[in-house]
């Protein structure tokens, strides 16, 4: 089963880049080289861990090549849990004024443009501070283990 772990965020804005830290730890747990996190999607990979700044429409072309995808991101106030996970489906989330593209929106583009609907999980971790640093806040750093466990469980159970 072709699997993509797709983290995104801004590493230079502290907790916004928590996905990067989750991916590093996940690779350690999986016994993979934690020093290498791809920054380009590879449609031919059977298993890939990728980190990028943000989702963009042209990702749909490569997303369509995978059977299952786990998106990893940060979240703020509107999400109740500190570490949130949910199975997501193709639904376009309207963003009136911005360039923001969400995982369900990307899946919607994938489905409509390429007629593919990979199984997808979204795992997000609460961010507390968004300063100009790569070091996570203490509160967010403590949540990384939980996020990794959720992803690991999903990998084993699907």
């Amino acid at each position, binding site marked *: 089963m072709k699997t993509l772990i797709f983290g995104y965020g*801004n590493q230079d804005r502290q907790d*916004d880049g928590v996905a990067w830290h989750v991916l590093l730890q996940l690779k350690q747990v999986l016994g993979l080289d934690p020093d290498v996190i791809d920054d380009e999607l590879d449609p031919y990979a059977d298993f890939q861990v990728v980190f990028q700044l943000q989702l963009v429409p042209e990702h749909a072309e490569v997303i369509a090549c995978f059977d299952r995808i786990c998106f990893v991101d940060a979240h703020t106030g*509107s999400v109740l849990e500190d570490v949130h996970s949910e199975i997501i489906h193709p639904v376009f989330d*309207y*963003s009136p*004024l911005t360039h923001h593209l*969400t995982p369900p929106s990307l899946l919607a583009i994938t489905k*409509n443009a390429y007629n593919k609907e990979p199984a997808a999980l979204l795992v997000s971790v609460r961010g507390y501070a*968004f300063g100009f640093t790569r070091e996570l806040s203490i509160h967010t750093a403590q949540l990384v283990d939980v996020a990794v466990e959720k992803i690991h469980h999903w990998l084993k159970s699907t």
Partner: protein
Amino acid sequence: MIAQKITIEPVTRIEGHAKVTIRMNDDGTVNHAYLHVNEFRGFEKFCEGRMVFEMPLITPRICGICPVSHHLASAKAGDDALGAPPPRPAALLRELMHMGQVVQSHGMHFFELAGPDLILGFDADPAMRNVVGLLQADPQLTLKAINLRKWGQEIIRILGGRRIHPSFAVPGGVNKALTSQERDLILAGYDDVIATIKIGLSIIKDWAEKNSEDINKFAVLKSGYFGLVKPGNTLELYDGMIRLVGSDGVELEKFDPKKYLDYIAEHVEDWSYLKFPYYKKMGFPQGVYRVGPLGRCNASDRIATPLANEELQKFKAMNGGKPIENTLHYHTARLIETLYAAENVKVLLDDPDIMSKQILNTCRDPKPQGIGVIEAPRGTLIHHYWMKDTGQVERVNLIVSTGHNNWAMSESVDSVAKTYINGQEIREGLLNRVEAAIRAHDPCLSCSTHAVGQMPMIVEVRDSSDNLVKTITRG
């Protein structure tokens, strides 16, 4: 009807706070509408103390949509600060990367953000007035649009090693030459890209013809127009003189961008975090101007490439050669520029110097300041660094394009609100126009961070006592 205050607030996190407030009169007419935007001062502080050669890698982190513009403006400021102008091949390669940036950014805006408004209609259900709705309406066009943006991104990746936050330009030049294989790879997509942009132009022209009434009453503002030009007032995106023309098209100034502080001042309003740049000699608000595609097309007389120049001349003919002041024609101007950028890619790749290995000037003649100016997709971008003797940056001033257009966006919102919201119940369809007035300028409001969670547009209708009467949430 009692007096009301309407608030439209896309809820975002750090950058990205933009709020529209529409103040209503007792008779249901709009008293005044305002747009409030945050700015990037935190980033300027963050850069203090950094070495100047680090800046082209640090400043693109401001934005994930137009990082190349910050990357190149920063490298140009570094050239100036270190007294190291890049060799011609390096300047050509930087310009090539910039063209990729313009194609991907303009392409995304027209087809994926504004296109649904135009193709599906302002009054279409917001749930469908988006790229997926467009996909369902015209899947082939949408795939072409995605490929257009991909081509621009691929140019950036080939030169800078990655599509976002490339490592390429350094003070004095660039760090990688172009190979013949890479050149051929870019050229292979050229014909399809030109064809897609022409489709976009035909869409906007057809739409403009059918919607002339909307265009002519939708935020038609008198202002100056501002942008880089080459000799002959030729539209320029990478390097040139700044030309400012008035609402009548008469040239007010043409100046070296490094002297921007002699010509531009910033006005402050107590209701906005963002300042309002204006032309000093005319004062505020008489001296306000617009930047970006409409600003540049109005500030220039011609374009150096044939297809885009033909379109520019048709564009100018719509108002007898005088500036086009209709805000919705930002979209037309944006497509003309996309055509220019794509054509210019071929011009640059056909230049014999483009594959030269002479890409770095290592001479140094440090100066106390460095200024780099470039036309980002959204308008003129200024990086100004004050230097220490150590090569560290002591102080930073960034004027971003969304800032130059602050007055225009706010006035557009006011104009549209007054035109379309008048003594009647506030329906979502009316607010679509307010949203479109902001979007025409393609502001960059939320590019530094992207987290889970919607960015809904919340519309609050309040009475004169600030009691909540109605809430509309979009998103």
